[in-house]
């Protein structure tokens, strides 16, 4: 069986991380599995974790009382789920639901925040990676609101 730092090492998000940083990260990691249809987190709940998806398919949803759940994005293998753990007040902004059986590594946000405070090189690396994820998502959202296909 592969160890957690091996799993992290294989993930796109952690490409280029030094072994010592991966080892530090692995200290905050656990393996998790979500069944199809299972909610991973709900809007408003405490965001003290993020997930690196190893396999599966996850929908980010907003619940509209009139229309029911509306999926606004989907994530899959090699994506990262959740950035609210990084920014106060650490609450989820959306619901996340596994739409297929999903395997992921859950990273404990509180544990990571402490490690990033203590090791600014690691903190900078994490901020850099998340900034890239956020910039990509922002760009996609901009195109989405443009109604690209009209």
């Amino acid at each position, binding site marked *: 069986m592969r160890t957690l730092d091996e799993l992290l090492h294989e993930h796109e998000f952690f490409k280029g991380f030094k072994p010592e940083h991966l080892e530090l990260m692995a200290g905050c990691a656990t393996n998790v599995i979500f069944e199809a249809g299972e909610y991973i987190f709900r809007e408003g709940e405490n965001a003290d974790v993020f997930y690196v998806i190893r396999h599966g*398919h996850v*929908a*980010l949803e907003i619940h509209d009382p009139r*229309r*029911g*759940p*509306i*999926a*606004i*994005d*989907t994530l*899959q*293998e*090699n994506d990262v789920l959740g950035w609210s753990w990084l920014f106060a007040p650490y609450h989820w902004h959306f619901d996340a639901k596994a*739409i*297929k059986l999903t395997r992921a590594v859950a990273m404990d946000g509180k544990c990571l925040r402490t490690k990033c405070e203590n090791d600014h090189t690691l903190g900078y690396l994490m901020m850099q990676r998340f900034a890239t994820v956020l910039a990509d998502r922002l760009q*996609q959202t901009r*195109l*989405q609101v*443009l*109604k*690209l*296909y*009209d």
Partner: protein
Amino acid sequence: MINLTPQLTTQQLTDPMQPEPFRVKRVMKESYDTFTLEMEPVNSERLFTFAPGQFNMLYIFGVGEIPISISGDPNQPAMLVHTTRIVGAVTKAMSKLKTGDVLGVRGPFGTGWPVSAAKGCDVVLVAGGIGLAPLRPVLYQMLAHRDRYGKVVLLYGCRSPEDILFRKELEKWRARFDLEIFVTVDYGDSDWHGNVGVVTKLIPKAPFDALNTVAMVCGPEVMMRFTAIELQKRGVQGEAIALSMERNMKCAIGLCGHCQFGPTFICKDGPVFTYPQLQSWLAQWEI
């Protein structure tokens, strides 16, 4: 390096300005605003040979004439097929045609997709909205000669699950082992279990060998611009990307200047161009 020389395929038409009457044989509703017409010539046994990517000028008598790409199977030239989205007066009038009605057809006009130049390569087709219609003949052609190509991948984006065109055909193709189809919508409801997000998001993970890939992209201009950028980020060469452009048209044979885009006329130099041919013009306003 992959080189897609534009495929000039315009046939010698006896009189390219004279519409030929075609009779509607079948009308198919594809979605709430898009329909497909199957047509046959009224006065002749003409087989309508065309290259994937070419278009016709369709004349709705008393209303107007518009360019519409051919969306049918090039290997079945007995039937002329067009898929159209209702946006204004002519497309609306066209949507009201019924079996037995007659309309005028001029064409086929323009350059085709680089189907021959793509032989031996992986092929990725990126379609947005109604842009799937002009690319469908490419899929027919490639599936008829599947052994000539490497991986064939279709990335298709549309607004919502209700907007997905050719649903049954996509499902049938999806069951094949030699064709990869990925569909994404901007917003999905609880019945939708597929991808959500813009079509460009599918590019980084799509299964093709970027260095040996020919990409054919069809959709609104902004979508094509961002798709070309994303394809290049993935490693596809600009020269290996083909796009299909749209502009208002009148003559469709390079005479009136209506469809001018930078130094080119879309009707006769296009509608299919390589990305480097258009790159410097694509981001400019009011061209």
